[in-house]
């Protein structure tokens, strides 16, 4: 029996990675849910928005690095992030003006918006490939670890190592700060409340004198900013590869729907639920049981419920289960 080592193992391979992955999903899902709440469609171009914002951030990071500009132990990307956000916001506002606004005036059904977003997805995907190419890009710099395996072993005296990478810590902290700021905006400011009102009941919001164009604009700005932060954090944590962001679309949508689409709190909860399930179900528990059980009972196999190659299946199965049991998602959806 070695409970402490078992707990450290769980922290190292499940809790910390899932927290940071969950934060990335939550930020992505928030953007999807905001757009759904206000514009009433599932934005298939959201993954590309994340990739686009991350790409601009990377380009600016490289520029800063070439100037010798650094943030000390923190990654340079953090000072480049605002530029990425500005670029992504500019692009989503431009697409709204050129593409979506027309259908809004025409009061087209949501499915038309969705199809239009597929067109936008193609164009943004092409732009990203032309500008930065389809390959892996690494742009993380600064201190790699908050503490390393060796430091932890020395400090704790346990045999099981624990590693906290700076990108994981930054991801979690930034996600908390941003979510807090978003909720403050939605619940405490006039514009935020107007946005919730519009999402709740469009006609009544119009009667109350809320300007729909302004609400839509704010929604896009928030979605663009959230997408960029999510994209950059994911890129810092793993690596930047344009193709990956399209694959992220599935767990992100799953998170948003799971929590109740249009509900920001649900999007956050959904993000962490999906991330924890993915990591926990594809984790091989052999060593974990090795610590807890006497040697004679230690398992021979990997004790893995599902191979990591099927992690997408996890988000999907949870999604289908929730939709079958409670179609509105865990928290009732459809409004901000």
């Amino acid at each position, binding site marked *: 029996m070695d409970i402490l080592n078992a707990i450290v193992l769980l922290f190292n391979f499940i809790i910390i990675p899932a927290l940071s992955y969950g934060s990335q999903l939550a930020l992505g899902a928030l953007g999807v849910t905001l757009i759904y709440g206000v514009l009433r469609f599932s934005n298939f171009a959201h993954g590309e928005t994340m990739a686009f914002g991350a790409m601009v951030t990377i380009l600016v990071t490289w520029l800063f690095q070439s100037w010798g500009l650094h943030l000390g132990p923190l990654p340079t990307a953090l000072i480049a992030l605002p530029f990425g956000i500005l670029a992504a916001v500019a692009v989503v506002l431009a697409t709204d003006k050129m593409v979506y606004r027309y259908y809004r005036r025409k009061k087209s059904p949501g499915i038309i918006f969705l199809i239009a977003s597929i067109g936008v997805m193609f164009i943004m995907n092409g732009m990203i490939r032309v500008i930065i190419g389809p390959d892996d890009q690494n742009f993380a710099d600064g201190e790699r670890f908050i503490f390393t395996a060796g430091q932890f072993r020395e400090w704790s005296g346990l045999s099981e190592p624990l590693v906290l990478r700076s990108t994981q810590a930054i991801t979690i902290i930034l996600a908390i700060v941003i979510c807090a700021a978003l909720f403050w905006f939605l619940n405490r400011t006039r514009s935020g409340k107007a946005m919730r009102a519009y999402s709740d*009941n469009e006609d*009544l919001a119009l009667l*109350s*004198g809320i300007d729909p164009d302004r609400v839509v604009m704010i929604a896009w700005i928030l979605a663009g900013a959230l997408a960029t932060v999510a994209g950059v954090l994911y890129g810092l944590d793993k690596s930047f590869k344009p193709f990956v962001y399209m694959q992220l679309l599935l767990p992100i949508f799953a998170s948003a729907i799971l929590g109740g689409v249009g509900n920001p709190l649900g999007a956050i909860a959904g993000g962490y639920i999906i991330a924890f399930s993915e990591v926990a179900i594809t984790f091989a528990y052999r060593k974990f049981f090795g610590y807890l059980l006497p040697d004679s009972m230690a398992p021979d196999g990997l004790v893995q419920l599902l191979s990591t190659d099927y992690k997408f299946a996890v988000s999907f199965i949870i999604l289908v289960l929730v939709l079958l049991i409670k179609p509105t998602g865990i928290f009732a959806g459809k409004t901000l």
Partner: protein
Amino acid sequence: MSFLIGENMTGGYGGADILNNCTIGVEKGEIAVIVGPNGAGKSTAMKAIFGMLNLREGRVVMDGEEITSLTPQARVHKGMGFVPQNHNVFTSMTVQENLEMGAFIREDDFIPTMEQVFELFPILREKRNQPAGELSGGQRQQVAVGRALMTRPKVLMLDEPTAGVSPIVMDELFDRIIDVAKTGIAILMVEQNAKQALNIADKGYVLVQGENRFTDTGAALMANPEVRKSFLGG
């Protein structure tokens, strides 16, 4: 000429006209009620006054100013408050936030107005931090009326405010509406519960097929045997 009047209104939602030369008016501090059988164009008449459908003929005048071509939003700025029949509160927002949204167009301090609304509807003060969607039907209607009052309108228009609430709640709501009228606001409402509504009405309009059939004070209409027989169930 009335404070607010829709004169000789003719029009519909494209296709056939629903309103035919219909005239509805209301004075400050008065309650005017539109009654009539199903499909008589009661709600349509009110929506026409509020600018939610285009009139082919006729005009709408408020306080001596012609507002026929204004959008509903612009009419809210001019001092009209409108309470739709359905979906008339922000269900996911608290009672207080609903009232704040009602005051969205106001630049000045709206806290005193909110106080007045709370005095008028004490239950709302109690439930100010509850989501409006969790309230009972009657309480929701109070939120809806309160939201419309937040702009300090000169005219308040109510589309079947008592639809789907119990008789006790209905009486309570009518009492509140009388209180609102006493503050000097003109009230125009469409009602299914014709008897009870005409009881509190200063002026009643009986519409049939988009035309004025009877127009008189509420009491006179209640006393009119023909109206009683045809529209009030004897």
